[in-house]
């Protein structure tokens, strides 16, 4: 039987498939269980035979077709059906092991140009069997060399062979490999012709391809391979014109991979396809507020969603929360006093409405409390944050806010007790820890706070050094791909912490600060990698920026202890990580100011302000330095700017008062001092703005 001509092979294959099909459709003649099983076995034997012969025929034909190309080398529909049916029949009979084995045998056959769609179907089906019907424990490993022994009584088509073949060893490996093969064929064979006569074909091809992409999403998300997923969806866009499902999946993959501005564009396209889909609009707005700082765009998106929703929509309350966040963020980035006031009021009203719509949502209550706190309605804020904690008793931002509210009521001891409890629940939260060092500084003195700071550095090492180790080896793709869920979660956590800490002493979320920190980050990356190519820093940038923030805080503590060399050392450490930051320039200025080197201090502060014109602390200190130098006119101008940037800072008002006094404007000066006193009485130990406006 070895040298049968292709024609004979084809005929034989067809006859076997017809025989099998006849037997199958005839059904069992008796009800005897034994007989039924017997007949099923016979059907399968025919199908298996037909399949092997047909695949061999195709391989032979392809060999010949290289000389004379004649079309028509296709497997007829009955035989194709026989090939597709046989593994499924095994499984239907309850014999999963044989079914999977048959699938694998068929897939290992060297493919030809004419069997690709068959192959795609088989690969997808086996992947489905693996993902839907098995778990890691029940996975059946591949037996590689079993079928190589040509003991079977029939001619076998050629199979893939070689030394360096990838052989899956467990469930995820095999499922991913199958999906990879299916995806490659699917994106290649996709029907792109959009004319009417191809509509049916295109629909079927789209359905088949989507099925592959769905399985791919299910598998890749489990192992947090978001970049891979983005690449795949990118390829899918070619045939997904106007298909909401694929577009939305693409957007989600981009969000997970951290490609926010692209994600926003894709989400907007999704929203065009389904204008009434609230989730898409809310996702887009969240990106605008939390990642891209496009407050106006975000507000417009939420407005669009609110307009199309009725009041009893389950997302209505969250929409209002998002809207409030938008107003509040915009208010903090607005320069005009009147506009800022009306935006704050709008934000407060919107949060109140969110709370009315859904009184059980801790997030609505939390944001209401935060907004009240920002507007210094302290007792009302305390009431709201306490109710919020009743709905979610361990929400970290509510706990932090409550601590700050206690400090603004000057209940430092109670604040300390609470923050200790909060830190027991969230021992790795650096933002909480920084607040704790401030409290310790007030209650127990800077020495004590120093210890906490050192512990923060240790903690940083513990948390992120593994991360650094992980990526140090020179494997380019490793950094991007091989992280499990916990590494992924840890990295997003670092990102979150960084956002919190970065805004921490700016006291405002102005566009300038945001732009500044973005520019700084890029420039620092360039500078640090250009300076030392050999020692370019390992690990992801965020974790290093976190470390820089801790150093800066430490420097400040040393200054208050009059330990100049230590403080300088800290600033040095920071600038080696993050050389072009306004934070570094500011701290350098502080050191000079402490040494009474006002001229140098002044130029440092000016540097800081040229990077970030809205850095309140630099403005305050520049004002003081100018005042010390006797340049009161200039000092007044700078401090007025400080007051304008952040009108809630009592230090700015106090200093402005001092300067005005020296200028002889005693009436204006006393007004400033009054304002300062009034603000001071409700002022928290660190600004309320350290608490982020987040939708989760």
């Amino acid at each position: 039987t070895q040298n049968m001509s292709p024609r004979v092979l084809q005929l034989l294959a067809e006859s076997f498939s017809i025989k099998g099909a006849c037997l199958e459709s005839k059904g069992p003649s008796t009800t005897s269980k034994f007989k039924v099983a017997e007949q099923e076995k016979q059907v399968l034997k025919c199908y298996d035979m037909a399949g092997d012969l047909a695949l061999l025929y195709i391989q032979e034909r392809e060999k010949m077709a290289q000389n004379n190309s004649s079309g028509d080398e296709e497997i007829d529909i009955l035989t194709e059906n026989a090939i597709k049916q046989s593994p499924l029949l095994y499984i239907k009979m309850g014999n999963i092991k044989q079914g999977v084995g048959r699938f694998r045998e068929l897939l290992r056959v060297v493919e030809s140009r004419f069997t690709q769609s068959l192959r795609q179907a088989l690969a997808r089906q086996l992947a489905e069997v693996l993902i839907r019907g098995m778990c890691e424990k029940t996975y059946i490993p591949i037996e590689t060399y079993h079928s190589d022994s040509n003991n079977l009584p029939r001619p076998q088509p050629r199979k893939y062979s070689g030394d360096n073949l990838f052989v899956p060893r467990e469930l995820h490996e095999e499922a991913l490999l199958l999906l990879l093969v299916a995806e490659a064929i699917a994106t290649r064979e996709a029907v792109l012709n959009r004319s009417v006569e191809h509509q049916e074909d295109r629909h079927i091809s789209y359905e088949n391809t989507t099925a592959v992409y769905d399985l791919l999403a299910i598998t890749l998300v489990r192992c947090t391979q978001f970049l891979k997923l983005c690449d795949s969806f990118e390829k899918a866009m070619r045939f997904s014109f106007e298909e909401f499902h694929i577009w939305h999946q693409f957007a989600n993959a981009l969000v997970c991979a951290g490609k926010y501005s692209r994600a926003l564009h894709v989400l907007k396209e999704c929203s065009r396809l389904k204008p009434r889909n609230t989730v898409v609009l809310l996702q887009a707005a969240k990106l605008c507020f939390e990642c891209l700082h496009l407050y106006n765009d975000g507000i417009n998106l939420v407005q669009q969603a609110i307009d199309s929703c009725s009041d009893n929509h389950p997302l209505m309350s969250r929409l209002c929360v998002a809207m409030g966040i938008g107003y509040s963020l915009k208010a903090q980035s607005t320069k005009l006093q009147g506009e800022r006031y009306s935006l704050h009021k709008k934000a407060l009203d919107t949060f109140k409405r969110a709370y009315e719509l859904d009184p059980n949502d801790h997030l609505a209550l939390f944001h209401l409390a935060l907004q009240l706190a920002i507007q210094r309605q302290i007792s009302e804020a305390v009431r709201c944050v306490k109710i919020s904690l009743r709905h979610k008793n361990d929400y970290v931002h509510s706990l932090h806010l409550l601590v700050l509210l206690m400090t603004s009521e000057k209940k430092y001891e109670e604040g300390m007790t609470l923050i200790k409890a909060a830190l027991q629940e969230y021992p790795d939260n650096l933002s909480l820890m920084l607040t704790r060092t401030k409290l310790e500084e007030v209650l127990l003195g800077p020495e004590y706070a120093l210890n906490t700071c050192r512990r923060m550095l240790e903690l940083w090492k513990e948390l992120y050094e593994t991360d650094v180790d992980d990526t140090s080896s020179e494997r380019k793709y490793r950094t991007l791909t091989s992280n499990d869920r916990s590494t992924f979660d840890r990295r997003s956590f670092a990102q979150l912490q960084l956002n919190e800490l970065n805004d921490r002493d700016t006291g405002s979320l102005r566009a300038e600060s945001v732009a500044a920190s973005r520019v700084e980050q890029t420039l620092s990356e360039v500078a640090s990698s250009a300076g030392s190519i050999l020692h370019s820093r390992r690990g992801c940038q965020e974790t290093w920026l976190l470390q820089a923030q801790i150093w800066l805080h430490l420097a400040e503590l040393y200054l208050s202890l009059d330990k100049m060399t230590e403080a300088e050392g800290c600033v040095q450490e920071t600038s080696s990580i993050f050389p072009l930051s306004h934070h570094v320039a500011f701290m350098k200025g502080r050191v000079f100011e402490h040494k009474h080197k006002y001229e140098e201090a002044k130029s440092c502060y000016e540097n800081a302000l040229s990077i970030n014109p809205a850095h309140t602390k630099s403005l305050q200190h520049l004002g003081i330095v100018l005042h010390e130098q006797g340049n009161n006119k200039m000092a007044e101008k700078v401090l007025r700017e400080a007051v304008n940037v952040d009108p809630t800072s009592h230090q700015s008002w106090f200093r402005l008062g001092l300067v005005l006094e020296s200028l002889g404007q005693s009436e204006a000066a006393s007004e400033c001092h009054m304002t300062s006193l009034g603000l001071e009485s409700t002022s928290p130990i660190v600004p309320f703005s350290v608490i982020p406006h987040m939708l989760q």
Partner: protein
Amino acid sequence: MTLPKTVREWLAEFKSLPDNEVHSYASTVRQNEELTTNLYCLFESLPQAEVLDPVCHQLFEFYRSKESELKTFSRELIPVVIWTYLSALSTSGKKSVRGLEAFLLGVYNLETTLPDGKPNVKTFRIPTFSQPSIYHEPSSISSISLTESALSRLDRREAEEWCSGPLPQYEAITGQNRQAILSTVLQTFTTEIAELTTQSHHWFCKSCSRIATTGFLSLGDIQSQEETAFSLSDSPEPRRRHSQYGDLPPRLAVSPSLIIEMLSGLYYVTFNSQPHLGLKAIYDLHYRASYELYADVLLVTSAMTNSLQTVVSSSRDS
């Protein structure tokens, strides 16, 4: 509230069991359906801590026993324990859940190390298209058109290693590590889901649905308020609990990683033993993820609901 009789007997019987009978006891205890039903119902009724503590203690004894059947007995209860734990935690705080917490933490810490004492590290390779495999030859499927992605496919790379672990050991569950611990514990359930009983699948679906929907009135309306895209005849009914605002219990915190773990189990269960409850749970989690805007969960739930729709529509055709 007191323990049901069968549960009390179960507690007493195992304590007085001589060592040489443990093996035969282990092979029968999972078949005792009256006992397991009672245990599920017990956890569901959210009893007082003092009632639950001895039960949790014994479950942990089972879990760390050398008898694999005893271990599986405990494992089958994990989803309902997680639900009870989250629920009790949200209503009455940490003090009321000590027993449950001890069980979950114990299981977690056992999972961090292998029986031989080495840290438990899971790895597998992520295949790449450019490396030939037993199922394909890179050059034969490569695209006709010369595009960047087509070229990158030929960029020869070895399969990358995906690796998870080693996991840190913990002394206590805190707000920070809670969700990570719970998803690891649930993983012990889902990786062996095909070998667990239909009854445990049933309670698994119920627990997932409850974790997703507790404290919400009508999350399902998120979808129905859009233009009706596709309606399944057997899709879950829009739920409405007729309670007044304010009467609702607190919502349960659930992280994306925990939901994704649930979903991988639910997908199996939906196809193999609990089509209706499984589908309902997947939809519940989908709505919850839509509410929380969890992009990674939405990827999975949209993929699952979409693929299930194709299954349903194609099975209808034939």
